[in-house]
């Protein structure tokens, strides 16, 4: 449970912000959520005659398709039609960065679960039955499942990327200590509880409307247009909300929407395609597994002088977002540390797994795991605590990142030392030491995990958004932005902005669905940036409207615009309440034919990055924090619990602390899941073994830390963040990395012979094996 302290602090802090913000601070979607009345794609009322579709996918990871026989399936009563690549009127190649991914396999299959055909029938049940009747003959080709194998065979997605700072080779010569090693971090299934899905409906003139569970409505629109060979304006994409995304619906929501649209295009009927869980697990990509090597060099006083690493990213069978994810691994390869001499290299290795994709953290967590491993290794060898090395190397103001950006408004040391003080680290460490001395069958371990995470799409051109704000005749407001609500509370934040600017109650404001006809050419809701980009656009649109309304009010009240303010649905003149209400003001504006609609465009200023030099200023700002994790392992059984995770987090000036706290807690637990019990398994033939919720386990209510304490550190925030409230979606996931090292320290307390290994997740199997390693 949270200490009440945090909540009390939170409430007092809220007093300081405007009344509108305070009132609206609960997640505004929660009313319909708890009543089961929120609408997800599978809940939308469908038209009469809607067909249902099921995907037929490759039963092999790599091979040549020798023959496919659809006759029995087509003959099944209720089957309307089966679509393959031959039915694609435009391009069969999809893929956001590199168009290297067929929508439907043509002659070859490249991963187990690769879509081959779409079966459209009167019901999903019939379509599934028909799928079992399809006969396919595939000639096996060699299967690659690991990044190392791919590297050995020269199988890559694109050219390697490399960042460097200083002279690493030379610096290693001056090091007192040098350590090298290997690490592995496994993939992670997104496990959004709402599986992938889309619903396509025919409109007039061959236009198609798609309701999609996607983080990227424009990506869907663009890809549907390309696949159908039509102009983008013929395709409308609408998103009500997502039952979880976590990056899994940034790029990989697209194929299902495209397939539904393709069937609608041909049949002129609406078509629904919702993946069942097994299909979703088998056909979609996950967080990238990484196999990495590192070399770290330190001075006697524990300064990291040189760091070199090679990341092998298991990209899967197609590019998807892998190149961008690989890039972010490099951006975060030194986490919260200043290392003067760094050389990092990443290879996106092409294998026969489903194309791996975005997942909260976007390659950052994989990069951070490696340097934390290198530090743990060095500490183990030198005979110091890892936290001594961590602390000795934390970023300072004006330090340079390996990609050339100068660190500003750095809170790395602030969060670290605040955590040490607030949480009485000396006492905590003593408790752990005493416990370990007095107990043989149980051992405790403690770890520190600092984080530094850059905010912005690292692809600079993606950092923009728009907002369309309508004030209706009666003074109520509708807001459309590019933001997709998927649980992160972005709707609430948008509403708070408008409520604060106009000083009207939140029930007068509605956040519309995300729709490509209202807000076009958008970036996906990703990179933790959705509230910043769309919030800034909303702020701009609302401010423009406010200026116009002030003009109307000043004329009506015969005063200057400067003396006008809006407060609680009333116009104030120089702080004095006037007789003019909000609704009257809107009526006046209408009579004077003032535009009550505004569209604003925001593009993040200052950021840039030159890929030819691998230098620039890619991030608007960074988010900082420190987590202290304590675990207890049962040395008889190899099982473990987390006693506590204590965090000092840099929210800037949080605009919705309840929502932001939820993001920290949720991300933390997801990170712990990745590091501990979530274990993806493929066999050597490339078949997913962890293919159901019975074999792939995410944290349940019993497996989360007993205590999670999150203390906001007082910082100035950043002007590039919306209302100085920093982005919060991804950074806290990396606090979860601390779980791995806390467990490792507990194992060491039991077994002095334990040879530290960096092979995540740390399952009970690895713990028990480590405890009894001789």
């Amino acid at each position, binding site marked *: *449970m949270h200490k009440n302290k945090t909540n009390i602090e939170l409430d007092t802090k809220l007093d300081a912000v405007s009344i509108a913000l305070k009132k609206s601070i*609960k997640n505004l*979607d*929660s009313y319909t*959520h*708890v*009543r*089961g009345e*929120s*609408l997800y794609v599978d*809940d939308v009322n469908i038209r009469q005659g809607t067909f249902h579709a099921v995907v037929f996918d490759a039963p092999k990871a790599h091979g040549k398709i020798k023959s496919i026989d659809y006759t029995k399936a087509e003959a099944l009563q209720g089957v309307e039609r089966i679509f393959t690549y031959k039915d694609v009127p435009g391009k069969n190649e999809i893929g956001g960065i590199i168009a290297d991914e067929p929508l439907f396999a043509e002659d070859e299959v490249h991963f187990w679960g690769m879509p081959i055909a779409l079966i459209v029938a009167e019901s999903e*049940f019939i379509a599934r*039955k028909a799928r079992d009747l399809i006969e396919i003959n595939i000639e096996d080709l060699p299967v690659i499942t690991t990044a190392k194998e791919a590297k050995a065979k020269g199988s890559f997605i694109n050219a390697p990327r490399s960042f460097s700072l200083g002279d690493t080779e030379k610096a290693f010569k001056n090091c007192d200590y040098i350590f090298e090693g290997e690490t592995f971090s496994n993939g992670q299934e*997104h496990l*959004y*509880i*709402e*599986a992938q899905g889309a619903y396509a409906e025919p409109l007039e003139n061959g236009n198609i409307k798609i309701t999609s569970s996607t983080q990227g409505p424009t990506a869907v629109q663009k890809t549907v247009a390309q696949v159908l060979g039509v102009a983008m304006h013929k395709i409308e994409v609408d998103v009500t*909300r997502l039952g*979880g*995304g976590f990056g899994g619906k940034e790029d990989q929501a697209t194929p299902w929407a495209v397939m539904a649209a393709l069937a609608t295009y041909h049949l002129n009927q609406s078509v629904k395609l919702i993946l069942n*869980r097994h299909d979703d697990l088998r056909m979609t990509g996950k967080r990238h597994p990484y196999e990495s090597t590192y070399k770290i060099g330190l001075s006697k006083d524990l300064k990291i002088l040189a760091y070199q690493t090679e990341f092998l990213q298991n990209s899967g069978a197609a590019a998807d977002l892998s190149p961008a994810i690989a890039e972010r691994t490099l951006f975060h390869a030194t986490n919260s540390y200043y290392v003067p001499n760094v050389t990092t290299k990443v290879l996106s290795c092409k294998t026969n797994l489903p194309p791996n994709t975005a997942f909260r953290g976007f390659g950052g967590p994989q990069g951070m795991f490696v340097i934390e491993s290198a530090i743990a290794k060095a500490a183990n060898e030198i005979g110091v605590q890892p936290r001594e090395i961590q602390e000795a190397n934390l970023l300072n103001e004006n330090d340079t990142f390996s990609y050339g950006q100068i660190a500003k408004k750095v809170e790395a040391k602030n969060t670290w030392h605040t955590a040490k003080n607030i949480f009485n680290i000396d006492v905590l460490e003593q408790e752990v030491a005493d416990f370990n001395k007095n107990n*043989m*069958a149980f051992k405790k371990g403690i770890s520190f995990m600092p984080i530094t995470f850059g905010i912005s799409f690292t692809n600079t051109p993606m950092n923009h958004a728009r907002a369309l704000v309508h004030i209706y005749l009666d003074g109520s407001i509708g807001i459309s932005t590019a933001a997709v609500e*998927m*649980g992160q*509370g972005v709707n609430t934040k948008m509403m708070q902005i408008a409520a604060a600017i106009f000083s009207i109650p939140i029930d007068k404001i509605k956040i519309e669905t995300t729709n490509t006809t209202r807000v076009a050419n958008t970036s996906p809701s990703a990179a933790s940036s959705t509230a910043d980009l769309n919030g800034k656009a909303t702020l701009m649109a609302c401010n423009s409207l406010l200026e116009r309304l002030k003009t109307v009010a000043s004329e009506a009240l015969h005063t200057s615009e400067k003396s006008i303010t809006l407060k609680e649905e009333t116009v104030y003149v120089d702080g004095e309440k006037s007789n003019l209400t909000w609704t009257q003001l809107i009526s006046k504006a209408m009579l004077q034919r003032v535009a009550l609609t505004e569209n604003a465009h925001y593009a993040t200023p200052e950021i840039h990055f030159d890929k030819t030099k691998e230098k620039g200023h890619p991030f608007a700002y960074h988010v900082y924090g420190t987590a202290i994790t304590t675990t207890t392992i049962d*040395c*008889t*059984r*190899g*099982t473990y619990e987390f006693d506590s995770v204590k965090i000092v987090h840099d929210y800037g000036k949080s605009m919705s602390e*309840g*929502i932001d*706290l*939820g993001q920290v*807690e*949720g*991300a933390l*637990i*997801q990170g712990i899941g990745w590091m501990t019990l979530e274990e993806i398994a493929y066999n050597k033939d490339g078949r997913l*073994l*962890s293919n*159901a*919720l*019975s*074999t792939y*386990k*995410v*944290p*349940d*209510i*019993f*497996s*989360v830390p007993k205590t999670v304490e999150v203390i906001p550190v007082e910082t100035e925030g950043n002007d590039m963040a919306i209302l100085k409230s920093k982005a919060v979606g991804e950074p806290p996931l990396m606090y979860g990395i601390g779980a791995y090292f806390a467990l490792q320290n507990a194992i060491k307390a039991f077994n002095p012979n334990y040879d530290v290994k960096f092979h995540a997740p740390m*399952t*009970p*199997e690895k713990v*028990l*094996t480590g405890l009894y390693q001789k």
Partner: protein
Amino acid sequence: MITFILNNKTISTSEHSGMTLLDFVRYEKRLTGTKIGCREGDCGACTLLVGTRTNNTIEYQSITSCISPLGNAHGKHIVTVEGTNLQDKLTTAQEAMKANYATQCGFCTPGFVVSLTGFALSNSEKNYKNAIDAVSGNICRCTGYKSIEKATQQIVDKLKTQENNSFDWLIKNDFIPAYFETIPKRLKDMEAKDLNQPKGKYISGGTDLYVQQADHLADNEVHLIAEKDYLKGITIVNGVCTIGTNATVSDLWNHPEINSFFPNLKKHLKLVSSEQIRNMASLGGNLVNASPIGDMTIFFLALNSDITILNSEEKERTIALKNFYQGYKTFDLKEGELLKNIRFKLPSKHSFFNFEKVCKRTHLDIASVNTAIHLSIENKTISEAHISIGGVAAIPKYLHETSAFLIGKPLTTEAIIEANNILQKEISPISDVRGTNDYKRLLARQLFFAHFTTLFPKQFTLKDFLQHA
């Protein structure tokens, strides 16, 4: 016709009994608050309440509707999240979820709300621990559960103020809508004749069959037996306990006498599954599923249980459970035969029972290795020993040789270490998604030691075993 009350409405349907209750409420009745997450009872997004009439009251239990046959709703009150909604305001459970930010994307939320409402309606003691058990089968991928814990605490605090568990109080305090009060009479008056369809696959709770073959069951005749009285019930006569094949894990959980004989029963059963599954899963089903890792099977093997089998001519035969299993997923049950009950001698005051299970996730997961032990000790000597172990052979294994070895031995570290050597020869684990062969062997040893450190903490410590092993 299948007849039941769905929320506030009595309905009859001629839909197929074998279709899932989830598909019926979602797609036939368009009650879309009930969500689809996994269709294997592992996420709880489709949680519903089932109200069963007992005398003049109704007993409500939560279930995962994705693995429950529609036919099992016959004669019951089925409650979806919509059926808990109040006009124009939130229920106490809903308000607590909202107030504590316990909902983010909202997709799992109705399941949590229904589970928490089920807890409010249940007879279980209104404390925090029990309330958390009630939502243990609900997976949330967004919140990390801390906010849900807070919401749960808020609900428990409110429930603790009630004087007696009544619909009246729950209605007045906004836990449930007023129509609940009419349900006992309406269920009593409802004519729900036996569906009487003695053909097709036998299905009790359905928790395993629907995971394996939901499509097949939705398309073929099913023989629903969950309501058959002669297969129900737990009776204790002369120190012998007889459990009907239809008895659920929850029936065992709630049985006062069984709990007094097995003081750690709830702790053991919590490892088996979530509350929703415990409410549905029949013990007989767990036995005939024949999984080499079936938790209840391991439990009953160590109790040296007998099982009674009924054939289509209603003739009975009884065999020892340990002789029932023949090979991987094969067992001694002939065409038309049905498991009627399971019987075992209750532990005496000289006897000791323990159950151990380790998996990736402690709760609601399939074991890497599970094991149970039943020992009788007289004059510091082991007079009776039964040890079972799962996950290390093609069948749920009764350890004949290890058990036999221990009989007549004094309870010493040496004897236990020697017994482990025999155990290691009796097992033959294979590497799979639940662990490598080496890991399972090590774990089998550790859990075997754990039986003794748990049952005799003053006599044995982990250190003793490791020094000698």
